[in-house]
């Protein structure tokens, strides 16, 4: 069975982002960019399913500016077989992305889409659920364990109260949580191999989908800064402050 893995290019999770002084967004020029960490986990899961003989082909896809091809090369180096870049200079938002992905999921005839639960830049946590809706497929979000058989997948999900296990019919969309796996490191030989793997280019127009964002960002500001307080010399002092200064206990 074929698997589609959407990967997003985002500001690296180690970067402390700064808000632009004109309040139009955050500074992304000269900032380290990486694959969204949840998507790395998705690629890893797909590769493991392929190693287990369940999956035959892994197709990575990224929607966005030309530099997304670097992210796709990383996916190929991690073990994806081929890649599709859907190029647009527009800001990508979940609804538009889900439209692109639903077209590709059908044209590529995949049975499973594995993707991140959340992009760590916009923190939307929507695209997988939207894709499942567009396709009318089942969904298993926030997965910490995945088993795939011919016609169904058994997925353990991280929910607020603990864990729950679902059995979902295939085709399905699965979104990854952090504890699903630990992605392997990209090795140099695999980076070299990845350069030879096929990378197709398409545009939203060619796919006949509209990716124009419908949410408009009016402004972006820094959150109220929390200032460092004081160090206490002893636990006695701490308890005294909590009881008498801020009166929280």
């Amino acid at each position, binding site marked *: 069975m074929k698997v589609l893995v959407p990967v997003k290019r985002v500001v690296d999770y180690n970067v402390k*982002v700064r808000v632009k002084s004109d309040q139009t967004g955050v500074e992304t020029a000269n900032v380290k960019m990486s694959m969204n960490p949840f998507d790395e986990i998705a690629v890893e899961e797909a590769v493991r399913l392929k190693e287990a003989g369940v999956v035959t082909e892994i197709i990575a896809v990224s929607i966005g500016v030309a530099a997304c091809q670097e992210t796709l090369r990383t996916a190929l180096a991690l073990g994806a077989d081929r890649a599709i870049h859907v190029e647009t200079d527009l800001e990508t938002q979940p609804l538009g992305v889900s439209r692109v992905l639903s077209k590709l999921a059908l044209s590529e005839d995949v049975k499973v889409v594995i993707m991140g639960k959340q992009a760590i830049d916009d*923190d939307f946590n929507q*695209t997988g659920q939207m894709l499942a*809706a567009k396709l009318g497929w089942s969904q298993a979000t926030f997965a910490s364990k995945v088993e795939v058989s011919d016609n169904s997948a058994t997925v353990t999900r991280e929910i607020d*109260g603990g864990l729950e296990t679902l059995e979902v019919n295939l085709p399905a969309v699965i979104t990854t949580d952090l*504890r699903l796996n630990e992605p392997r490191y990209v090795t140099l030989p695999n980076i070299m191999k990845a350069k030879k793997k096929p990378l197709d280019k398409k545009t939203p127009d060619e796919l006949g989908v509209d990716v124009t964002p*419908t949410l*408009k960002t009016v402004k972006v500001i820094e959150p109220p800064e929390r200032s460092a307080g004081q160090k206490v010399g002893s636990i006695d002092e701490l308890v005294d402050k909590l009881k008498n200064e801020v009166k*929280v206990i």
Partner: protein
Amino acid sequence: MTTLIIAEHDNEVLKSSVLNTVAAATKIGGEVHVLVAGNNCQSVADAASKVQGVSKVLLAEAEWLGHALAEEVAEVVCAAAEGYSHLLAPATSFGKNVMPRVAAQLDVAQVSDIVGVESDDTFVRPIYAGNALATVTSSDSKKVITVRATGFDAVSAEGGSASIENVSTGNAKGLSKLVSQELTKSARPELTAASIIVSGGRGMGSGENFALLEALADKLGAAVGASRAAVDSGFVPNDYQVGQTGKVVAPELYIAVGISGAIQHLAGMKDSKVIVAINKDEEAPIFQVADYGFVGDLFEAVPQLTSLV
């Protein structure tokens, strides 16, 4: 302009996050209705009808709605959505799972995790793990929104007297089924509702050592939380995780023990009223947000704290 809130519940009890969601809806303006989709969940509808500010409760009961499966719940929500300007749910694992599916079925965008309402179409939401706050406007005919509970003070669970109306459940989609649930049972308060939280990180060293934090928590009537590192190391279950990808909390008092203070962790707790950090590394970034910091070994500090409170 009328808002429909999709209630989170377990077929018996209405979750407190709904009270914060009603608060957000009240800020948007217009009437507030609540949809309860579940199985044998009349008690939830009764509770929802008493919530302050709610004027109508829609009740959809069917056997296949008993487990909050996204495919089934989204179907009911979309069938009920006609005539509503706003569809809201709490930004909990329930709301995050269901609402984007609803939005896509209606072919509209979703505004996730709002912490502020500027007007009926403009909302404030954190991005980049809370390192920036974005104000966004939605031009869609229906606004589908999830609400971060810590952004809105809960309305009263009492005082309302809404009517309850049965609505269509449609047919089961049957795309997925629940196999099992492993819910953490605890006599302590829920993380997102607790007024005091004691949280442990990798510095705790083991799951057994969390007993130290539990003893402190029990004396304070607090909930116990954790960093991702503590969860990944298997010290505590996943539902303890506080942070960008865990739970977002804002208690009166947050005590971080053996937690370094990575931005992803801070994203989940930096709106707490008072933050205390106990860490042996005086350079730990957690001290930059702590109101009171104690530099020292947690294995001495925590038992001492427990004995003094």
